[in-house]
């Protein structure tokens, strides 16, 4: 994946220059009862293992656009995989149809909109996009 290297480099530089505004954080609708999630819980929800929350609701994960740097950064931080690997993972599961990948979006604004409109939704955003509609449930350590 030499093609993604400049992106990773860019992200790294971004992180240094803007320490907090561009980094991904996992968020839920502020109306949700979920306050805090463990990393494993986030992995299970986003990679389709199970999506039932401790509250009993079925979580609805929302992915960033396929080519966005935030998505690559998120999966790198979550399971240390690149987006191709994540895509290959999903390609095997989709065949059986037992589970589905997170909801696809076309832009980060769409993510925010979907999240704001669904209390069971769970997504990840740049820290800079966070406002009062959303609640951070998992932050990745620096």
């Amino acid at each position, binding site marked *: 994946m030499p093609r993604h290297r400049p992106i990773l480099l860019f992200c790294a530089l971004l992180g240094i220059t803007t320490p907090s505004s561009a980094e991904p954080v996992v968020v839920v609708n502020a109306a949700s009862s979920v306050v805090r999630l463990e990393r494993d819980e986030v992995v299970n929800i986003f990679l389709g293992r199970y999506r039932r929350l401790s509250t009993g609701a079925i979580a609805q994960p929302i992915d960033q656009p396929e080519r966005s740097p935030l998505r690559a950064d998120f999966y790198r931080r979550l399971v240390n995989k690149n987006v191709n690997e994540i895509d290959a993972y999903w390609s095997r599961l989709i065949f059986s149809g*037992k589970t589905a990948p997170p909801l696809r979006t076309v832009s980060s604004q769409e993510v925010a909109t979907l999240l704001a409109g669904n209390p069971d939704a769970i997504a990840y955003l740049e820290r800079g996009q966070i406002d009062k509609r959303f609640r951070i449930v998992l932050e990745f350590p620096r």
Partner: protein
Amino acid sequence: MTNADHAPLDPLHIRGLLMRSILALILASLLAGLAAIAHTAQATRQHAQQTTQTRLNELLDTVESTLRVACFARDATLAGELAEGLLSNSDVLSVRIFSDQAVLADKRRHAGNELQAMSLRRPIFSPFDNHQQVGEILLRPDPQVIEARIRDEVWFAAIQLAWQLGMVAVAMAVIMLLFIVRPIKAISDRLHRMDPTAGERLATPRRHAGSEIGQLVYDINALSDRLVGALAAEHQLRMQREIDERKYHAIFNNAESGLFIVDGAGTLSSWNPACARLFNIDPQRGDDEYTWLHVALLNWDSPERITGMIRAALRENSAMTEDLLIVDQDGDRHWMNIVLSPVGDNLLQGVVHNISHLKEAEASARQLAVTDTLTGLANRLGLEQRLQTLVQQYAYTQTGGFSLLLLNLDDFRRINEGMGLLAGDNILQTVTGRLSGCVKSGDCVARLSADNFGIILNDITRGDVADMIAGRIMNAMRQTYFVDGAPINLHASIGITIFPHDASTVPNLLRQAELAMDSAKSTGGNAHVFFDPILSEAAEHRRQLEEDLRGALRNQEFALFLQPIVDLRSNRLCGAEALLRWRHPAHGLTPPDSFIPMAEKTGLIVEIGLFVLDAACRQLLAWQQQGLDYTLSLNVSGRQIPDGLSPAKLRAATEHYGISPGRLALEITEGVMLSDIDKSLRWLNEVHASGFRIYLDDFGTGYSSLSYLKQFPVDTLKVDKSFVRDMQQGNNENTLVGAIIAMGGSLGLDIVAEGVELPDQVQTLRRMGCQYAQGYLFSRPVPAEAFPETAELVAERLATLSG
């Protein structure tokens, strides 16, 4: 050869070396093969299991990532797909896939035994977290497939092994056949036909000279040699034993010695013919069944001695020998020498010889030692033994003296030399007879040597009786003897000594009798003389004289005196006669008459003569060096001719001193010449031929044979002094001396007149024509060192006489 009837072996015989080896090889191959196959099977099984595990693991590796996803997502569909895929591999019998909560898939190809041990269980981890287990997969391989694979592999290995072992066995069999079985078969065949005693031997098979087979052939041949050698030796031994047995049998039967075996009880168990002859055993007896005989039943003189001897030999376990008397059927007694040697088993081997003739010979030899064979009388030893016995008897009893007579025939040597030994023996036998007739039967007559007899007259101790008997013997001796009809007259000399009057020991008696007899001889014989102590003294004197003479030679006590001889024609000194003197340390100057006879008797005269010759030569040398041409004459005794003073010794002496033999004259008497004419003549001729001059001494006193004078090479006559001394005017002697001088002159001889003492005699001799003279008128004999002085006196005397 015990296996000579065995058929030769077929090499393929079931018990043959080859078949045995092949069977053993096959058996060993089978065992080895089985072991190898068992091992191979075990190894193959393990290997197959490992291979299966590896393959299953590899299989799982290829699907692991998908498995992770299926287990993470708990996707049974995906898991089922995976399980189906895995089952497509023939090794796999069943597949089970678990998530952390439930079985996702459980697929199995067909019913059958699952191989629990070989099942493969692997945990499945999350695709996103290698530490988080999200499931498990259990794979079970198909045992039938694995077994089939193992079977195939083992079978292949077995076939391969069988091929290899088969090839090795065939190769071994061929090698054995070629290198071992065939050579052994060849050797065996050859051995079957071989005759070692005919010298046949095995040939070493080709190319086997250095191999074990070759060594075996060599050993077999060596063994054959040894066996053949041993066989030949054994055969030789058997032949030799047979020959020996026959030989010993022959020896036993033909032996001159009697041989027998006797046991401890005295029973004779076997004997040879010689033994039967000696013991007078019936010859038929040995052939009967009743072959034993007790030794004491033989006709022994004393049977207890032979039985005692048997006991002793067995007791001592050593050989015994004894001489025993046995009586034959005619009553004759025979001496048997018996030797008994133990041969073990209480048996004795006996050897018997008839030694009767030996015993007789022994007895006769004992007799012979003391007997004179010619006359049958006792000899000197016999007489001495008899005397010894008588002397000893007298010592015990103090009775029984005797007279001892020694008798010697006078001039008996003349008979032996003149008429032969046989005539002498005849006379001796006659003498024996006559002597025996003159004495009593108990008296002893003995012949001591040649013509010496001894007579012991028992109990005769009185001189008059002995004298009478001696006279009777003398008379008997004087009777005429006849030898071949020729009459011969002899007489005897007898010496008599009386025991115990004259001497008490045998040697003294014999010596005294001999002295008495010598005394009778010295007076001309034909007399008997009693021993007188004076005779003993004279004998002692002679012995002393002889000793002194030997000492004199050793101590150089002899000296040469010179008496001048003058030439009456030229009135000058012309030489001297050498006269021997003895400067006796005790008796002073001794004239030759008192010792020359003794010197002649003992032979010392020869050494003395050589001394005189040496001294005379030295004197002549001295004269020669002084320019004097004197001659020197010396006296020669009969005992010095021919060897004592041989011509060679004379020549050697003159040559040694470098003097002319013509200056040395040798004076001999007629008696010397007459004792042995031939011998003397040879000596005289050789001496004369050597250049020495010969003087005839004492001429006129003896035979004065004219023929001898002609025959002998005499140069000079010396007229005896007795004629000269009695020579007077007109006297008979005068005429005699004149005749001698005339005769000598006519024979061409020089004349020396001895004993000239008076001037008148010189005148007379001159007138008669005598040229040389010697005597006190001119000089007595003087020592050599005084001779020059004497020569001057002689010259003065001659001058006076001629003046």
